[in-house]
């Protein structure tokens, strides 16, 4: 294809204006994705793909229509534009209004010294194989799966308002899962490992063999341990669990579209005190350890958004449309999984701001509680309408008389987020932000790579399920 992507999109936008769209934008995306899986010291799969296409959004008489295609011939693109118009025209009595946003013309890239596409396949494979071999620490290990993920996501956004924003994000990482059997009991620990918005240099620099061995040891330890008795406890939450709970149980409720539809438990609560004084929650586009997200899929710059400040709800996350509907400014949170999808309001890197407590200080007065850890956890789910959350966490530790004691497994935590945040009574001084090339957050049938995290925090009341 000789024509540049800019002129291709420009032509589509000109056509959209001619046909009578009051606003239109077009997004081109090229996504390279490579995955290598080694299971039980053998290659399970080596797969690569390239995803390529264009999505067109047109506003006609106030209604939004969207169509996309991976066939970029002129004929097909014309038809796609027509489909977007047809979709918009089928919607009656709707007016979507977009709040003003700053129009940018810019190109940005995450740092990648070595493009994963330039690395010979055998070099990639040998790192994964070595890491997998290192997981077989003793006979209790029955299965070990190591995954390498390498992605490069290039997106170009252009609109009839004159925006032209190009973002390229490289994300690489390695994950591992081990299954152990101890005295007839099986347990598995899957860990998302480490991912960074860097090039292949990150994969070369990490000690993956120690990482996979540690996952195996944790699986062995967990297989030989019990579950805690169900009940309500004081818990110390690690950054991974905290980040996940915040993202799922509070983050989604702070998304403008969920607020605007009346579904959010945070509806109408701006300015209210919802959490204890030590709780400050932030959504930020570029932060160490997190996902690199400088601009959203409406061309709006993603800056630092303070959601909760010292316990008070300050802001919601917005797209241009929800900013208009709910009231507020677009915050750069309109994100689309890919060119096949319309942008919807999503979090970027959502975290709790650290304070000044040390780890030991936070557990010293816990008579009986649980140190809830994320490594090997299963994730979680939330009902945003009420704020009920549930999470399966990884192998954790009992806290007895102010000290860490035995390991427990099969731990599930649950609660109502607005109650839980009020019982946060100590916030640590550490900060860890996590993202992953493998996982992602799902909403409305779209996935997005996000970052989440925070410090260690102590929660006075948490419902814990187990066996």
């Amino acid at each position: 294809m000789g024509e540049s992507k800019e002129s291709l999109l420009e032509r589509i936008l000109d056509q959209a204006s001619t046909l009578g769209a009051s606003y239109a934008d077009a997004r081109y995306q090229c996504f390279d994705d490579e995955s290598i899986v080694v299971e039980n010291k053998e290659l399970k799969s080596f797969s690569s793909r390239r995803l390529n296409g264009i999505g067109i959004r047109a506003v006609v008489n106030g209604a939004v229509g969207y169509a996309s295609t991976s066939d970029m011939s002129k004929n097909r693109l014309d038809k796609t534009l027509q489909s977007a118009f047809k979709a918009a025209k089928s919607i009656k009595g709707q007016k979507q209004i977009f709040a003003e946003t700053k129009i940018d013309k810019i190109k940005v890239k995450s740092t990648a010294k070595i493009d994963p596409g330039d690395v010979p396949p055998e070099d990639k494979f040998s790192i994964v194989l070595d890491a997998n071999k290192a997981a077989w620490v003793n006979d209790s290990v029955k299965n070990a799966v190591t995954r390498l993920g390498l992605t490069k996501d290039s997106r170009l956004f252009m609109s009839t308002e004159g925006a032209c924003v190009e973002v390229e994000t490289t994300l690489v990482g390695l994950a591992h899962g081990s299954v152990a059997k101890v005295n007839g009991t099986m347990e598995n620990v899957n860990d998302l490992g480490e991912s960074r918005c860097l090039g292949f240099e990150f994969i070369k620099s990490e000690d993956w063999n120690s990482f996979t061995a540690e996952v195996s040891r944790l699986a062995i330890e967990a297989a030989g341990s019990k579950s805690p008795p169900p009940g309500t406890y004081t818990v110390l939450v690690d950054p991974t669990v905290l980040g996940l709970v915040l993202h799922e149980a509070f983050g989604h409720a702070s998304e403008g579209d969920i607020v605007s539809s009346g579904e959010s438990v945070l509806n109408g609560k701006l300015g209210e005190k919802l959490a204890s004084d030590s709780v400050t929650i932030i959504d930020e586009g570029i932060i160490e350890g997190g996902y690199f997200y400088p601009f959203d899929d409406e061309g709006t710059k993603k800056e630092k958004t303070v959601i909760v400040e010292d316990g008070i709800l300050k802001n919601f996350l917005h797209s241009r449309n929800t900013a208009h509907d709910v009231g507020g400014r677009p915050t750069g949170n309109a994100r689309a999984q890919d060119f096949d999808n319309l942008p919807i309001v999503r979090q970027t890197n959502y975290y709790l701001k650290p304070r000044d407590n040390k780890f030991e200080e936070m557990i010293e007065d816990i008579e009986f509680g649980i140190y809830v850890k994320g490594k090997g956890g299963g994730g979680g789910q939330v009902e945003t309408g009420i704020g009920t959350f549930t999470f399966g966490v990884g192998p954790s530790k009992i806290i007895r008389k102010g000290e860490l004691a035995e390991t427990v497994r099969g731990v599930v935590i649950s609660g109502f987020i607005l109650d839980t945040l009020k019982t946060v009574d100590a916030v640590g001084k550490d900060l860890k932000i996590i993202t992953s090339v493998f996982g992602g957050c799902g909403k409305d049938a779209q996935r997005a790579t996000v970052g989440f995290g925070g410090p260690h925090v102590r929660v006075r009341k948490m419902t814990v399920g187990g066996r």
Partner: protein
Amino acid sequence: MKATQLADLAVKKALNAGATEAEAYVQRTNTVLVTFAEKIENLKTVESTGIGLRVAVGKKTAIYASSILDEEEIYNVALKAVKIARVTPEDSHWKNLNKRFAKTPVEGCYDKKLETPDYKEITETLTSAVDCMKNYDKRIRPTRSLFITSVENVSVANNHKESIERNGTDVGIYLTAKIEEAGINSTGGEEQQARTWKEIRFEDLATKTAEKAVKYLKAKPIPSGNQIAANILAIFLSGPINADWVQKGRSPLSGKLGKQVASENVNLSDDGTMRGGLRTRPFDDEGHPTQSTPIIEKGVLKNYIYDTYTAFQDNVESTGNANKSYGYWTKPQPSPNNLILKPEKTTSEEIIRETRKGLYVEQTIGEWLSNPVSGNLNATVTHGFLIENGKETQPVNGVIIAGNFHELLRDGVEMIGNDLRSSMGVGVSTCSPTVKLAKLTIAGK
């Protein structure tokens, strides 16, 4: 060029480039997705295409995929796949690709109407479903809901067989609503997936959604306790019955063929041919015909499910369960087509009547967090009610139910209902009746 021709072409190009075996999977889907709450918010149409090419050079294999379907790109895909395969290590288990191509006759899986979706009819039907919720109770606020239809065309070809082609349609609706009264929030939700438009019960689902939201205004957590009977869906087996899990040491059902793994009232099968099933199709993602496979009969484990690769290792035939569950660009692996727990004779009303103290679970979140390897089952109940002396009493939410699935299956399945509901729980098509389970623990206040 037609999809079938592209698949054959890709195989040919891969062999020319030096592959000893090649399998092409070409997929075209057309999707319409509508998001709505009180009003229709957006309507989008998506046309997506892709090819996944799996090649072997001797015993070395690789997959390369692309979303672009033209001759030049097909050539490029073939070259890249072979280039990667050459440098990967040998897979000692590799024999050959599927040699048995055929179509099992299936019905109720294609709705011609969805080929040219009528946007106006869709938006009007959805608008009236929303009105139906609002008319049920003035306090109801319809919240974010989704409607989706898709038409899928798949062609599979390999070096042993010329391409075969299948078509399928899917329709799904996900409704949610909310009520807020005196500071108390309550939600309701219903969903349905089907293969044809006319199967979707728009009004019925809307009414049930509203009903649920109203009913659960009175819900509260209950105290913790043991040994409370509960009803949950059986979705725990899709991993452990997968031959790949068994062969790789991940399955708790390894070595259990022919043994009692469940109580005698449990009969479970996997059926890729059931009429209108959510994952019914004439052939699997390797071109192998689908079938009905008994998994558990009277509590005894009868079979695992296989693709060609895992079947070779156990010296059996593929069961037609090769699935590219994660997309055309991934390697096909065994996974269930439609898992069916066979219904018994009792109605769900009778089950409630015969329960002295129990929890009826309507809806949970987080059940997918359960661990199929250790069997640890847990879920948070968002919509449930207490059963006391055979009667429905207090609505309940915010409690965790937990148990060990394998123990439950062996001696916790007290009663199985006569109803049957299809769902896509955790991405697996499952049909299950109401089940009464003993030996679950409850964590509440």
